[in-house]
């Protein structure tokens, strides 16, 4: 039984008491944790893959993997898409969320909460060194977090530390650090884990801006040898890595950035590269399982279609419910995504298997009921609306599907799709705002201002980032501008819940309130597929695509 199943078993049966590894019920079914179930189901468990080569003679090879194009420098303060795979190799974190979903000690050997999760005490190890040979100390850790909290550094990871204020991290002694949060956060260790990939520990005094990417003085299992922005990065194993069992057994790793996984496929097939982390199902289908290990990782990431609850044509929740009832989720997953997704139920809780309330009925397509709701809301003939998103494979397809689906109840959708890289031209430009009641940014076609939009969300270890930033009425990414007391109360229940029972109850409340208000249509959660040559072992990816190398090679 893998760690996740074991964890789920313990939580659901209450076989074990509450301990460090189970301090959050949702933890056991993190984005990646849930994936472990999927891994087992598809018979390509990394465990199995590793076991099968455990006795193979060690052979140092030059590993080459395809990665995404960087959208910015691989620097802790400036993390953007594509940098993750570099940072996950050269950097070290307080805690590791391993690919099977367990929080594992890294720099932090122990973490414990007091004050119901408002104060977190971290014990650190003292044998970690940066790549330049200097020891990694408690001061470096405090400096790292303070640097993110410093507005001058314009850190893109600062929002992850919303519960912290500058000066609230205290060094007790050389091995003990206390994080004093502004409010209870039972999931705080997940914030400190490598899924917050910008929060890698940097040396005191060093800037985590673009200059960091020239040396990448991290403390991770790989050392940067050379790096060309937007192209490739050559890494060599860090032989001084504190965890001897995780020192990579490869001569080197070359990360090559491709514009898409599809363009890297020929190189994978011919053996010029050994692995691709994020494949579309259609591309994966072209690979032979006798040559490649296909790992399907269900995640909690996916597309969230928002409908403005404060202005426009979707203010009446019956219209939003009607819109959601037109979506045939199973048909879309099977027909368009070739099965590479899990059905969702218009909330973000379904992926978190240990806490989800499975008794909440799944919303199914029902056009007649949708028409009735439209009539009740006074718009039996529908209306015209503009749907904004950007040109990303899934977004495009789902937007087209929504257009067709909504037409069945008279909602005539005009698609406005931003064709720029990452939606940077229109869709993801906006004036950030706290979604204060009554504030209605002008609809300029951008994500947080448009009436209806589709944004993609990456997998997260816990649902908290979605809940706090997207679903709460004061969330800064509350694109639907939902201001629902039931949802807010349920989210508060979730963030303060510690016991498995409380977490389950909170999840149930969130699921029900989400279905009732339907500010977002969350039709499915993505399954991420990676393909690795069968000659390779010890190379895994988490749900975000971060590289996790165990100490095995080929």
């Amino acid at each position: 039984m893998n760690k996740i199943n074991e964890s789920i078993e313990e939580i659901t049966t209450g076989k074990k008491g509450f301990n460090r590894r189970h301090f959050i019920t949702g933890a056991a079914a993190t984005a990646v944790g849930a994936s472990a179930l999927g891994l087992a189901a598809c018979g390509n468990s990394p465990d199995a893959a590793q076991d099968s080569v455990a006795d193979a003679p060690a052979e140092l090879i030059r590993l080459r993997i395809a990665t995404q194009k960087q959208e910015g420098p691989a620097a802790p303060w400036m993390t953007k898409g594509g940098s993750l795979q570099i940072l996950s190799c050269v950097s070290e974190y307080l805690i590791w969320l391993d690919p099977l979903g367990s929080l594992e000690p890294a720099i932090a050997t122990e973490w414990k909460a007091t004050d119901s999760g408002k104060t977190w005490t971290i014990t650190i190890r003292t044998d970690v060194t940066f790549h330049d040979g200097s020891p990694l100390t408690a001061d470096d850790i405090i400096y790292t977090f303070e640097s993110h909290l410093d507005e001058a550094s314009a850190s893109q990871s600062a929002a992850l530390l919303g519960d912290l204020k500058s000066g609230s991290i205290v060094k007790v002694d050389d091995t003990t650090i206390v994080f004093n949060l502004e409010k209870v956060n039972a999931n705080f260790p997940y914030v400190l884990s490598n899924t917050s990939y910008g929060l890698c520990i940097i040396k005191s005094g060093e800037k985590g801006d673009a200059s960091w990417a020239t040396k990448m003085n991290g403390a991770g299992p790989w050392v940067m040898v050379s790096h060309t922005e937007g192209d490739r990065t050559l890494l060599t194993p860090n032989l001084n890595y504190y965890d001897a069992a995780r020192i990579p057994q490869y001569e080197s790793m070359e990360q090559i950035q491709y514009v898409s996984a599809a363009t890297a496929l020929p190189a994978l097939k011919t053996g010029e590269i050994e692995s691709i982390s994020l494949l579309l199902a259609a591309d994966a289908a072209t690979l032979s399982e006798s040559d490649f290990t296909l790992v399907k990782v269900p995640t909690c990431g996916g597309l969230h279609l928002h409908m403005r609850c404060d202005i426009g044509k979707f203010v009446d929740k019956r219209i939003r419910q009607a819109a959601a009832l037109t979506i045939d989720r199973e048909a879309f997953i099977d027909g368009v995504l070739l099965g590479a997704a899990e059905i969702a139920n218009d909330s973000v809780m379904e992926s978190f298997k240990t806490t989800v309330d499975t008794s909440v009925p799944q919303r199914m397509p029902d056009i007649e009921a949708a028409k009735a709701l439209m009539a009740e809301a006074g718009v039996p003939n529908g209306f015209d609306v503009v749907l904004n998103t950007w040109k990303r494979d899934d977004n495009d397809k789902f937007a087209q599907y929504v257009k067709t689906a909504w037409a069945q109840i008279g909602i005539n959708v005009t698609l406005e799709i931003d064709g720029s890289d990452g939606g940077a031209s229109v869709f993801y430009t906006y004036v950030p705002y706290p979604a204060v009641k009554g504030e209605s940014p002008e609809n300029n076609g951008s994500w947080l201002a448009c009436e209806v939009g589709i944004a993609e969300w990456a997998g997260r270890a816990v649902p908290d980032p979605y809940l706090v930033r997207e679903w709460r009425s004061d969330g800064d990414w509350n694109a639907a501008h939902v201001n629902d007391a039931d949802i807010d109360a349920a989210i508060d229940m979730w963030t303060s819940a510690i016991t498995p029972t409380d977490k389950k109850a909170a999840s149930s409340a969130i699921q029900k309130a989400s279905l009732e208000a339907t500010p977002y249509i969350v039709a499915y959660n993505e399954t991420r597929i990676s393909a690795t040559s069968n000659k390779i072992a010890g190379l895994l990816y988490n749900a975000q695509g971060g590289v996790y190398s165990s100490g095995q090679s080929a």
Partner: protein
Amino acid sequence: MLRFTLKRIGLSFVTLFLVALIVFFMTHILPGDLARQTLGRDALEESVKQFNIKNGFDKPLLTQFFIWITNLLQGDLGVSLRYGNSVSELLAKPAIKSAQLAIVSLFIIVPISVFGGVIAAMRRGKFTDRLITIGGLSAAVIPEFVWSVILILAFGVSFRIFPVSAFPAAGTGTFFNSIYHLIMPSTALLLVLFGYISRITRAGVVEALESDYMRTAVLKGHSRGSAVLRHVLRNALLPTIAVIASQIPYLVGGLVAVELVFAYPGFGTLLLGAVNARDFSVLQTAVLLTGAVIIFFQLIADLLFAVLNPRIRQRVTE
């Protein structure tokens, strides 16, 4: 000729300035909030403001243009908004890579195309001529990225003769291995350019074959082949050289699709990335450099044409 040359050089500088002007203002009318795009979704309003001040985006556009041009003339290409490091550093490697691809491509394209053109001319009206001209034209109408995919599937994936990536693995980039990796992309370009260059060569050779000096050479006892080598090529290839010169800018900066398909980190890829990321500092400089290369080789082509045809020279200087 000197007057003609000076005039053309002068015109080139004027063109370059106009290119700089257009590039600058065109890039600035692209939609999007640069600061927010660069700093990310979580950036605070104050950070956005500081970013704009730091990069001079708070100044009027005309002022920004003159600052950019002045810095450019002083050798300061600026800092990439996307990656934060110097533009010159970012441009250097892709520029070298593109030059390498262009050189290898030229070494493959020129001899094969010229040889094809000469053979077509010498077999004028026969099957070989038709095969070369029609085949070349047919190949030229298929875009290079389609050829790239076909070549990858055929010679990379199926027969495994050539690597599907144009860039060797780290530590294996020897001279010959690097060239070996560039053969497939060069072949894709050959298929596109062969028809054009071989037709120009063919036309020149056909004209020369019908000339009086060719008849004289044959009458003097030269064989047909020898006469072509000694007398015809020298005259017939000059227009071809000018045409080749005009294709060099395309080989340096216009190979976006080929570079993407072969995962080659050249100038085209950099340009595309800069456009998509609205990385103005890189985009402006890269486009300007591409423009400079185009203008330079166009100048070379013009001068060659003028050398070949005194009437052009005369017309421009008048």
